[in-house]
């Protein structure tokens, strides 16, 4: 019996089991029950929570227009937020590489990541304020004769406003990773492309960008996960409102369990979230393993 390897693995396995595997199993188990987090007398309800979630909860999924509900909003986040973070990260990372005050520019863009998300959320609530004396954006709109616009009070705008704040916060990380990868590209391939007849734009699209595929995937997957599990920005800026038009899946988990005291129902949302993320994580693991094999 080769027990020795297991002995060395045991501490890690035990930690994983206690803090990762057990909570997942427990969450799935709770999701089949009704009741609150502190109520010891839970009742087994089978798939009822899931049924409710997908057929009867307009805050989670809406089958009419406008579509603003947690599942739809999360999809919007995954698309817009991820694209935005990568696009701005690339833009700042690559442009900063071409100017003399590169370090200063990068430091400024990096700042939001140092600020706590709670603080950033509060700041953005002020930025979006309808009072032109407080709200930066409405102050600027006022200068050109518009507004004021209730960015956080208008169901058709609120998601884009919060996603904008999310992009502002996360661009810092994206820029750091993508700028480093851009800097590491061999300068000679850029020169070779220029001599081969490529414009600067073509050099970027056809030579630089494809070489940055790995880091871009890493940032994309990280941001998709961030988008799905986001809680803080929504909680502080709108608490999911107006109505429930800015709820997203991650926020819903928190809201159901801790605010509505519905542990079973919230756990069901968490399981849905897990199912959404699992293929993504599996794919990312494969990418990393493939990269290591090279």
């Amino acid at each position, binding site marked *: 019996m080769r027990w020795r390897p297991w002995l060395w693995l045991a501490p890690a396995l035990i930690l994983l089991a206690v803090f990762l595997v057990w909570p997942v199993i427990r969450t799935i188990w709770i999701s089949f029950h009704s009741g609150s987090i502190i109520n010891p007398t839970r009742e087994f309800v089978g798939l009822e929570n899931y049924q409710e979630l997908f057929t009867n909860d307009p805050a989670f999924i809406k089958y009419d227009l406008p579509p603003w509900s947690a599942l739809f909003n999360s999809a919007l986040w995954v698309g817009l937020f991820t694209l935005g973070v990568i696009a701005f990260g690339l833009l700042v990372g690559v442009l900063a590489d071409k100017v003399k005050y590169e370090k200063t520019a990068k430091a400024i863009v990096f700042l939001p990541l140092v600020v706590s998300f709670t603080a950033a959320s509060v700041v953005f609530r002020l930025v979006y304020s309808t009072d032109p004396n407080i709200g930066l954006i409405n102050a600027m709109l006022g200068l050109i004769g518009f507004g004021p616009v209730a960015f956080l009070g208008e169901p058709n705008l609120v998601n884009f406003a919060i996603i904008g704040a999310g992009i502002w916060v996360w661009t810092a990380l994206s820029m750091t990773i993508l700028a480093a990868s851009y800097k590491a590209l061999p300068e000679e391939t850029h020169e070779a492309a*220029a001599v*081969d007849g490529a414009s600067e734009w073509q050099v970027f699209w056809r030579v630089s960008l*494809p070489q940055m595929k790995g880091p871009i995937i890493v940032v994309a997957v990280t941001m998709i996960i961030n988008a799905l599990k986001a809680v803080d920005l929504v909680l502080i800026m709108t608490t999911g409102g107006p109505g429930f038009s800015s709820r997203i899946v991650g926020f819903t988990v928190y809201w159901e369990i801790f605010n509505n005291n519905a542990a079973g129902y919230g756990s069901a949302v968490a399981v849905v979230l897990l199912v959404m993320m699992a293929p993504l994580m599996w794919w990312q693991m494969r990418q990393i393993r493939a990269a290591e094999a090279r």
Partner: protein
Amino acid sequence: MAEIRMDDLTKIYDDGTLAVGEFTLTIEDGEFLVLVGPSGCGKSTVLRMIAGLEDITRGEMHIGDNLVNDVTPKDRDIAMVFQNYALYPHMTVRDNMAFGLKLRKTPKDEIRRRVAEAAGILEITDLLDRKPKALSGGQRQRVAMGRAIVREPAAFLMDEPLSNLDAKLRVQMRAELERIHNRLETTTVYVTHDQVEAMTLGDRVAVLRAVSPARPYNLQQVGPPHELFNDPQNLFVAGFIGSPAMNMIYARLEAEGEDVWVVFGDYRLKVDPRTLERHPGLENRTNEELVMGVRPTSMEASVIAGPDPDRTMRITAEVDENLGAEVFVHHTLNLRPVITPDVEELLADAGQTPESLGDTTEFVARISSDVDVTKGEQLDVVIDTRKLFFFDPKSGSRIGARSATAAAG
């Protein structure tokens, strides 16, 4: 196909460093021109200015009939081979080669034809679907060549393309480059620090040297390889071209009736009239200290050459390097070594300092390997005094040299 004309080209970097100065050179249509010199001599900068990767501070650059000073690299119709190959890692060999043609919207059939043809010339047809990381250094080198060839450009620019290959492969690729050039006859500018590469490849070779306050120009001499070897215009070119390097010795000339003798240490050799002819004005420089240059290849053991007491040096074989067909014999002359700015620069390039020479002069003779050389034994060596060189110790110029501008023309 095009001629490349550079007039008084100057490159000053942002920090004020003068990298290239007063560079005037015309590369003829179809010519294979090599820019050679030690590191930091500006040769790569000149090449990058031709490519458009480096701005031109002053002067004019023409490719064909076009003034290209302000033309971007993509519109110069040149192809470049980089030292590290600079292949696009995310593209297959085929796409690497086709990239430039795709950007120019060449018809697909034409791209396929040209890639196939270039791959055939370079014998890389089997590799077309591989990515660069699956290729050896020599194969990458071929792909980089292929990428240049398919473009059918006005000129090829090559920046030390062979320096990352091992010695054997380098010799093989050198021959291949020559074959390709003979076939395509495209104007080629080739940068190297290896004078053997320069001599074997170039129709003409331009020797460059870092600028100095006293000498704000890089170009030392340009000409066919044999001209640089047999008619170097200064100590720098004389010392840089030729392997093993030319012996440099402090010597003085003495006139004796019709004859002129060169004297150094205990040695006295009769100077052939042809050496005097090659150095106009040399007869007026008797009894002053000059630098004498003599190539190891202008010598032979007296047992082979026949006795010639007026031109014989008796040396001690301290070290002998037997290369099979010939032997290089090292001897120490009890004379202070020749140290001039030219020599110091050459030493620095070889990683040496003037101090490392000590206070004696090393002397190398090449003799046939048919001669038995015993270490520590004495040996009589006959010097071909038709092929002596004399330089002014202050300026480093050959006595009677053509002016610098004439040499550059």
